């Protein structure tokens, strides 16, 4: 906090100096700053200048940010309250690959997305779409969680968890429990592992819980085949609606999704299996051809500020700056206590492992669960 205050003070002083010297410049916003090529708040002349430029644009186009995903609902609401910017929320249900497709389809139109929230595989495949930007508290983000020039930055992660209907089924303490009779026709995934990141992660969790490593997802595929043969697996997409209707009694999903469901539906509980814990960060990036470039950059600044990062914790996700927040004492301790610390044997796949696993699933998954 002290660091940030000092930074803002310096930036404000710099802004004042720049502003005084630019007094003669015309009134049009961002006239002497090309927001689309700015790589940090300094390029604007400080945070306040960035805010002014963003508010002059007045709108922010976001895509694929459902309200109940890692508490994005509250984050978007706080952004709109804090700044005079309207958020245009599009396509909450689409995948990361479709976000990039939307950027392609709408290039040059003012409904194109300004910022992306993507899974790792799609991020690494789409570097051409991003504009580099480093937020004010760049140094608080660990090296491993960002691209060197700021093309993409990790924003939050969860752990792969198991949600279950506590009224109907007992709490599973291990993967083998789920093979039992109590869970007949009960277990579902959030999508297809060959298409959706959450389901892919579920197979990854099954792999490491069954003694395998992330180099080879075969143990995970075998587990789900056993689950299917026992009649415990149903191939329906687990959504808040199917959870609420009781159709899917056990769901493998990110902890923040299951926790959001638990907050909505009384009786839905969440548990993380002991032992290996599968995690995967999502990534924030700015669209190179954003129609509202200043607003996009302000969104990044906002998202990595303590206010928004704490809201991720409330939503059940672990923000990337959590260590810095805890060190500075600005973390929302109550929320963190409710969530619990991210402990256990944390595993995350590298991009090579993910690619190999994707190829394996493409070849073996359909046959395994048919």
């Amino acid at each position, binding site marked *: 906090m002290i660091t940030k205050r000092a930074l803002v003070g310096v930036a404000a002083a710099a802004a004042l100096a720049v502003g005084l010297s630019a007094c003669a410049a015309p009134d049009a916003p961002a006239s002497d700053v090309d927001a689309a090529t700015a790589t940090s708040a300094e390029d604007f002349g400080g945070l306040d200048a960035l805010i002014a430029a963003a508010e002059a644009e007045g709108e922010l*186009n976001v*895509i694929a940010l*459902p*309200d*109940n995903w890692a508490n994005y*609902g509250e984050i978007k*609401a706080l952004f*709109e309250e804090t700044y005079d910017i309207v958020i245009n*929320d*599009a*396509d*909450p*249900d*689409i995948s990361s690959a*479709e976000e990039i*497709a*939307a950027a*392609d*389809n*709408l*290039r*040059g*139109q*003012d*409904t*194109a*997305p300004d910022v992306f929230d993507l899974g790792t595989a799609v991020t690494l495949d789409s570097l051409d779409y991003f504009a580099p930007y480093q937020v004010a508290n760049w140094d608080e983000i660990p090296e491993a969680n960002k691209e060197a020039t700021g093309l993409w930055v990790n924003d939050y992660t969860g752990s792969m968890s198991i949600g279950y*209907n506590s*009224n*109907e089924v007992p709490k599973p303490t291990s993967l083998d429990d789920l093979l039992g009779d109590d869970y007949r026709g009960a277990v579902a995934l959030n999508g297809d592992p060959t298409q959706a990141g959450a389901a892919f992660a579920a197979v990854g969790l099954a792999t490491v819980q069954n003694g395998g490593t992330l180099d080879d997802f075969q143990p995970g595929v075998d587990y789900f085949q056993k689950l299917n043969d026992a009649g415990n697996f149903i191939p329906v997409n687990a*959504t*808040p*609606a199917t*959870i*609420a*209707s*009781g159709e899917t009694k056990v769901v493998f999903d990110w902890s923040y999704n299951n926790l*959001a469901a638990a907050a*909505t*539906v*009384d*009786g*839905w509980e969440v548990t993380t299996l002991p032992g290996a814990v599968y995690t995967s960060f999502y990534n924030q990036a700015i669209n190179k051809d954003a129609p509202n470039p200043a607003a996009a950059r302000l969104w990044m600044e906002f998202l990595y500020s303590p206010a928004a990062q704490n809201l991720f914790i409330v939503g059940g996700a672990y923000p990337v700056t959590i260590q810095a927040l805890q060190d500075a004492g600005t973390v929302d301790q109550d929320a963190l206590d409710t969530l619990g610390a991210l402990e256990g044997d944390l595993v995350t796949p590298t991009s090579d492992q993910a690619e190999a696993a994707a190829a394996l699933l493409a070849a073996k998954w359909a046959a395994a669960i048919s």
Partner: protein
Amino acid sequence: MSRASKLAGPVRLGLAPSRVTRWIILGVVAVVFAVPLLSLLEFSLRDGFTGSYTLSHWTGLFDPENARPYRQLFQAIGNSFVLAAVTVGIVLVLLLPTMLLVHMSFPKLRRVLEFICIIPITVPAIVLVVGLAPVYSVVVKIFGSGTWTLALAYGILVLPYAYRAIQSNLDGVPVVTLSEAARSLGAGWPTVVWRVLLPNLRRGVLAAAFITVAVVLGEFTLASLLNRRNLQTAILQISSSDPWISAILALIALAFAFVLLLIIGRLGAVGNRNQS
């Protein structure tokens, strides 16, 4: 003539079913089709897993906490109305005259027109948008990026349904005969179309208008992939946090479209009675 004796003739001739048959068929079909809707309703009244029922999800619609997405909803409803009107306009102004023209003057082109009007339904919207995107980037430059420009794509989407509805009617009307007769009595082409042909095609045109409005109100994929806001995308926004609200809003949207079409239908029926 009493109601019973009015029907006796056609029933005996085989032209119309007896009242019993009619109500059995309609009754069974109506019950079967009501089941999924009733299941949705029952789900929206459920109180989580407790097994009891509650109205809290319905009353929650008016909760001011949900006000943020509702701002978009009202704008989206307005957009959908405009889209429906423009699309019906496209059908009436572009498709209908072309169908008449082809039917009367270019009989060999009929199969071609039929094929053109069935292609839109064979390509899923999710693929079509890949091709529509470049076209729309040009459209946006000319017309701006207002949501109504989506109606141009919707006009294509409804072609199969509107074509089939109008053609079913057209097949039964001796268009050439009527127009020849009218022309030989001295009528100009506008009179022929407006006062001779269209009244005979009223049922088909009205059916086409109905299905057009229903398609536009229910269309989601194109609007969502081109990042425009219409009724269905707004509903999805609101329901992204609450499963019961999505069921409630779906039911409300269905009822809303149903009532709207009822109104249009009654207005059209009144016009029909005035004419005859």
